């Protein structure tokens, strides 16, 4: 794999060449300061896989004094930062709306606030503040939502952020980063924090599900070149989709997988290519069917006059069964194996002659 390089640091070592192999590049990336100063050049998971979200955020904050870390008293992911950041760690107590408003004020003064709360509370309780104070003003506030989607496990519907994508993508200027695992969270964070736009970050520090390709905002990670089925997904469900892909391929079905990484901006090109080059698309998300990925794909196809067969896997007008993660996956039919079986069943149904045939999962 080769990366385009053009920077003074490499020139110093007489490497003013256009491209270098990844192996050599990796050594140069040992210094995170360098990475942060070059958000356009992105990280391979191996580089940072020993770094936690908290450590990465701390390094970013150490390098860039504009960064302030805020929380509405949700410190799970940033427990060690108060001592290290001093006044740049601001805990507003259980006041999601006020935290976002204050973040807007800090951003007016040139800061980049990285705010934290559970995904439901930051996107719902503070929704109007995100829309009105961050969105209208287009301020670079980053909103990190903890335990989104099925990661809320046994908390119950109060904590199920499964309309968060729908809400956040509806706000002009607000982008969405939904990492597949801890590696991707850390790989994407420098670029997302450095980006001028406000971001909703669907926090996911789950164990690594794969070796990721270089992160780029707006560019999906495409696994495989399969032409039978394309799985389109984001966030935690990437791991189960990978398992589904393996199971389908074992059954002779060729599958490509699109890990969107940023749900907004979405990789239009990759989705349209998948529609053109495969027989059936499957959108997989731990989100309501309405307003999330399935809606994004549907809007895209209408806009581009694409006819495609799409199987959506999502929660259709209902919350999911509260339980521990593995049990939720099994109960809701969301394990990789179950997803593969659902897809096999769908493929067994003759495709209607009249074009698009979308069927909701679990009906």
């Amino acid at each position, binding site marked *: 794999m080769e990366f385009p390089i053009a920077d003074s640091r490499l020139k110093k070592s007489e490497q003013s060449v256009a491209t270098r192999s990844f192996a050599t590049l990796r050594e140069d990336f040992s210094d995170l300061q360098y990475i942060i100063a070059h958000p356009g050049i992105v990280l391979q998971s191996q580089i940072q896989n020993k770094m936690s979200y908290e450590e990465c955020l701390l390094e970013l904050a150490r390098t860039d004094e504009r960064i*302030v870390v805020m929380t509405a008293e949700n410190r799970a992911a940033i427990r060690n930062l108060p001592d290290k950041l001093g*006044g*740049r760690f*601001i805990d*507003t*107590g259980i*006041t999601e*709306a*006020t*935290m*976002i*408003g*204050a*973040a*807007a*004020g*800090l*951003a*007016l*003064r*040139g*800061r980049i*606030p990285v705010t934290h709360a559970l995904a439901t509370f930051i996107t719902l309780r503070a929704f*109007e*503040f995100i829309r*009105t*104070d961050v969105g*209208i*003003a287009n301020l670079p506030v980053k909103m990190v939502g903890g335990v989104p989607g099925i990661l809320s496990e046994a908390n119950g519907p109060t904590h199920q952020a499964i309309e968060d994508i729908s809400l956040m993508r509806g706000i002009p200027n607000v982008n969405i980063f939904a990492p597949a695992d801890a590696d991707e969270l850390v790989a994407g964070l420098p670029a997302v924090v450095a980006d001028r736009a406000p971001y909703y970050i669907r926090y996911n520090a789950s164990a690594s599900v794969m070796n990721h390709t270089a992160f780029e905002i707006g560019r999906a990670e495409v696994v495989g070149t399969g032409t039978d089925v394309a799985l389109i997904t984001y966030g935690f469900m990437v791991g189960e989709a990978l398992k589904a892909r393996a199971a389908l391929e074992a059954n002779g079905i060729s599958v490509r997988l699109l890990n969107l990484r940023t749900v907004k901006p979405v990789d239009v090109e990759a989705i349209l290519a998948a529609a053109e080059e495969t027989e059936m698309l499957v959108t997989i998300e731990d989100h309501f069917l309405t307003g999330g990925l399935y809606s994004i794909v549907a809007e895209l196809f209408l806009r581009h006059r694409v006819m495609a067969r799409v199987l959506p896997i999502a929660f259709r007008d209902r919350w999911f069964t509260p339980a521990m993660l593995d049990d939720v996956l099994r109960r809701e039919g969301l394990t990789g194996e179950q997803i593969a079986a659902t897809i096999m069943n769908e493929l067994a149904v003759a495709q209607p002659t009249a074009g698009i045939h979308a069927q909701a999962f679990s009906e």
Partner: protein
Amino acid sequence: MNMPLTELEESQLAQTALRVREHIVRMATGGGCFIGASLSCADLLVYLYSRHLGISPDRLSDPDRDYLFLSKGHDVPALYGTFAELGYIGRERLANHLSPDDHIYWHPNRNIPGVEFHSGSLGHLLSVAIGVALDIKLRGGTNKVYVILGDGELNEGTIWEGLLVANAYRLDNLVGIIDRNEFQANIRTEELIPLEPLEAKFEAFGWRTDRIDGHSFTEMHNAFGRLPFEKGRPSMIIADTVRGRGCPSIEWRADRWFVKLNDADAEILMNELHGHTTGALTSETLMVR
């Protein structure tokens, strides 16, 4: 402490405020505006921008300026009138009120020089002001952050969150000002959601308060000259005001919140500003939203 205002200074402030009120009445013609709340806080804005705030048209992006946030954004005609009188915008620009070709509409926005942040949804700008005050503290600045709140706006829960947070962070560079005109949109505050005793509420939240006549430049001068009321604590000034102040035929009226004046009514109110009663308004030109 401030030196006392001289008679001349006070009269100059009154003259400026009169011109601002004339602008407000003019902006209430055509598509109309929120005239009652604009007239109630006009004196406060004239005093703050003329005498108190460390800000001027030539230092709008100076990080060491004082910040004023208008959280009850529907009184923006008073702000724009003040800006026109003090050189932030040309007076002629006020004639663009509600024109699609300018940005002078019913709520403030940052396209107008001097406006620090947009508002219109109540209960937002205390939190935004807290963010600015926190940053000024972080950088060791000495400038202050003022936020004008409506009394009806105090119904909003985020105001009380903000009161807690500002106290927690000991933001003595933050000053709240309540335009206490005793009205919600359609009804007296004490009839709907009673607010009194206000000083006791704010004091219990750790703020230090003063209560003044919001139309007395002398009282403003004394109160604002003592800020912060206590080191390490945010300050709240409750300014008792009169909705519709300056135009007796719309003062203290629940049904004179948002008005659209025809030219004859505008002239009647303009005369009232100058102390002359010249007739009754034709009520069908007035409406409540």
